[in-house]
């Protein structure tokens, strides 16, 4: 079952930029090797951490958007856990959220299409609401 995940991880701040690039590309190749697909890899830059992680007050955030099965994420997480420069990671499943979002969007659009009626009904509805505030 193909799902969509966001995997965010923090790389130690004392790692050079090229090394981060290298790490990200090796992770990407690892993901494709186990049958996943990296849709997007984004460097979010150096940020201050909200609390100290592994002795570091700041870290380089990297975001991977991955499509694949649970095993792909499992493997990716294992790699992250093993790789030394990564101090923290979080994977979040996003496909269901996206589905719900598109549903809401569609609903809203269909409501807009019906607008000739609603546009006429709206103005009288608004003033009483404003009066109660």
């Amino acid at each position, binding site marked *: 079952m193909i799902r969509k995940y966001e995997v965010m991880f923090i790389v130690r701040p004392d790692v050079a930029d090229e090394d981060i690039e290298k790490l990200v590309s090796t992770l990407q190749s690892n993901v494709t090797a186990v049958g996943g697909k990296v849709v997007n890899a984004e460097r979010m830059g150096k940020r201050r951490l909200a609390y100290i992680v592994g002795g570091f007050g700041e870290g380089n955030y990297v975001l991977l958007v991955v499509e694949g099965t649970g095993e792909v994420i499992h493997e990716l997480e294992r790699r992250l856990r093993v790789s030394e420069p990564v101090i923290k990671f979080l994977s*979040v499943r996003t496909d269901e*959220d996206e589905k719900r979002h598109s549903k809401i969007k569609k609903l*809203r659009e269909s409501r807009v299409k019906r607008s000739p009626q609603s546009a006429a*009904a709206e103005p009288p509805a608004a003033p009483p609401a404003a009066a109660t505030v």
Partner: protein
Amino acid sequence: MADEAVQQTPAPAPSARPDRPERSERPRGGGREGSGPGGPRKYFRRKKVCKFCVEKIDVINYKDVRLLGQFVAERGKIVPRRLTGVCTPHQRRLSTAIKQARNIALLPFASRY
């Protein structure tokens, strides 16, 4: 469910819209400050409305620190619904987003003093 309501009342098509003020009125009616301890009400508390409903923010993402930060107290606690006026479904998603953000060190679990 919202669709059903729309179908039952075809004339006022945007039935979901009038619903919304009604819903936000509820905390005022049931709230403690509305009924008071019997005495005359001296001040009028402004009606609280859900920020996410009003501004139509559909996705509450853990990466959006600026948005989440508005619902986190100084000490790092999640601010309760009764103070912020966020509706139940949005508060639920908000709290999961805040917890995810905490996990990846975007928000503090507890900020030091």
